[in-house]
């Protein structure tokens, strides 16, 4: 495949009798943000740790830019940047020391500009334990990208962050993608995955049960599209159950809400009805099923609560 940056083939990893990952295959293309989703124990962290060279796979092939993480760990260090879920820094290390320390081991000059971009300029001499959760996350990301790696691995990068910090990190991830960086993102946050990723793979009990773009995944499920309509005379309130593909409907304040299996047919019929009745459309909202709903559908079908 062209521009294939990360390639995983028939990858298996067990811990004693427990098979954490069972013959999974996927690839990530250049400049893509690829989401790895799954409930706890699905095998996300095991997959990432084998990619990062922290664990040895039992079988299968893993490559990042053609580098086998276990056979060539030295080469791997300069082509990946990793933001671990846990801190990974000593409490007494200052922001400046952290930048000097990791840059020195990557044989690259300290990238203080990244600290400025991350809003950590004034915190350069602050020790790690004195930083807020958001600042720690931003520092962790700054260190992961300071040596300008072509591939970044992010494990729950926004866990525990407030809305503003989360939005800031999303902005940085989008900038990185725009610059051609390939990102692999493990997250529990479905809204984040839906917003940020180009493609996702859903892992369940060590196997990929579904993959594709968030839009493709949500369109595959049995989820219903929510259509909310508000008209001037509220005539729809009196005509429940007269539209095609509608499985459920309800009235909420000024809106009539329909759940449809075929939103195209339902919306056409609704607009026609409003026109014929001489009513005026004030608001129409069509909301497709979310990735979270699709995820819950898959995990529930797989017996995971």
């Amino acid at each position: 495949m062209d521009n294939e940056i990360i390639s995983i083939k028939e990858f298996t990893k067990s811990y004693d009798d427990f098979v954490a990952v069972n013959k999974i295959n996927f690839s990530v293309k250049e400049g893509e943000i690829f989401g790895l989703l799954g409930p706890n124990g699905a095998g996300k962290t095991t997959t990432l740790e084998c990619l990062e060279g922290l664990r040895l796979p039992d079988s299968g092939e893993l490559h990042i830019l053609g580098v086998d993480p276990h056979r060539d760990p030295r080469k791997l260090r300069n082509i990946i940047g990793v933001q671990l879920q846990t801190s990974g820094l000593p409490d007494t290390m200052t922001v400046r020391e952290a930048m000097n320390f990791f840059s020195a081991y990557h044989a690259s000059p300290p990238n203080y500009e990244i600290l400025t971009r991350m809003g950590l300029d004034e915190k350069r001499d602050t020790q790690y334990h004195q930083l807020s959760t958001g600042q720690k996350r931003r520092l962790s990301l700054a260190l992961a990208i300071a040596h300008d790696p072509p591939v970044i691995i992010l494990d729950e990068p926004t866990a525990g962050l407030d809305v503003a910090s989360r939005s800031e990190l999303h902005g940085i991830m989008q900038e990185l993608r725009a610059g051609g960086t390939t990102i692999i993102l493990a997250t529990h946050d479905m809204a984040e995955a839906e917003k940020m990723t180009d493609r996702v793979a859903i892992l369940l009990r060590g196997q990929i049960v579904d993959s594709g773009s968030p839009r493709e995944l949500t369109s595959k499920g049995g989820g219903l599209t929510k259509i909310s309509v508000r008209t001037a005379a509220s005539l729809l309130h009196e005509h429940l159950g007269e539209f095609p593909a509608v499985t459920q409907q309800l009235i909420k304040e000024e809106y009539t809400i329909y759940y449809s299996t075929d939103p195209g047919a339902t919306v056409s019929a609704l607009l026609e009805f409003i026109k014929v009745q001489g009513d005026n459309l004030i608001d129409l909202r069509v909301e497709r099923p979310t990735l979270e709903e699709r995820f819950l559908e898959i995990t529930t079908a797989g017996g995971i609560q």
Partner: protein
Amino acid sequence: MTAFSSHFLFEFKTGLRNSSAMLVNYLLPLGFYAAMGFVMVAINPGFKDLLLPSMIVFAIMSSTILGLPNPLVEYREAGIFRSYKINGVPALSILSIPAISTIIHALIVSGIIMLTATPFFDAVAPQNWPALVGVTLLTAFTFGTLGMLIGVISSSARSVVLWSQLIYLPSILLGGLMIPTAMMPESVQKLSGLIPSTYAMQAFFGLAFEQETAFNPWLSVATLLVSGILALVLSMYLFNWDSNNQTRKTSPLLALLILVPFIIATLIDFVL
């Protein structure tokens, strides 16, 4: 700045800015030294013979046996070593750089003791200053690697205390720091052959102070050197990046091999 200098600077500063490290690196050994200098010498003038070497060994043990292992365990348990590994920090640097910086703190305190013991407390000065410095460096190396080994094999802060005290307390009580080994009962002298500080004290007395010793001083030097190298090799072999990722399943009990040089030295001394 090179990776080594950046890493070393951080570790060295941590030895000063971290209150626990500051305590074991400086406050405890210098406070104990001052107390022994003022009180013990006044009570027992014979302690003037012991003050300089015993306080150097105490300072080194305080930094290396009490101070070095805990951060190694804390860093491993907090996932800091994982982060280091991902960023290309080699295992040798992870273990050796904190040990080197701890040894330097211990040598600074040892230097203060060397320069002040005689003028301040009338301690007996060594006959051979280069030998005093040499044995100090060797003792710091051996205890540094032993502290490293304790940090590597300990699974928690609690087990660090256990292993550290297993070396620390017998070293003070039986290693000749408080009472010269030659004055101990013969059975205790044999037992003290399993304690590293015994060899440090014997090397100090035999080579720096040119006195008669219970153990051959050159055998003591060889024992310290071999046990230091063995502790370094065992530390590297038993090192684990991550407590949840036991890729090397060798038992930490392998660390007991560190007793071998001391057992051999005791047997050699018995035969001689």
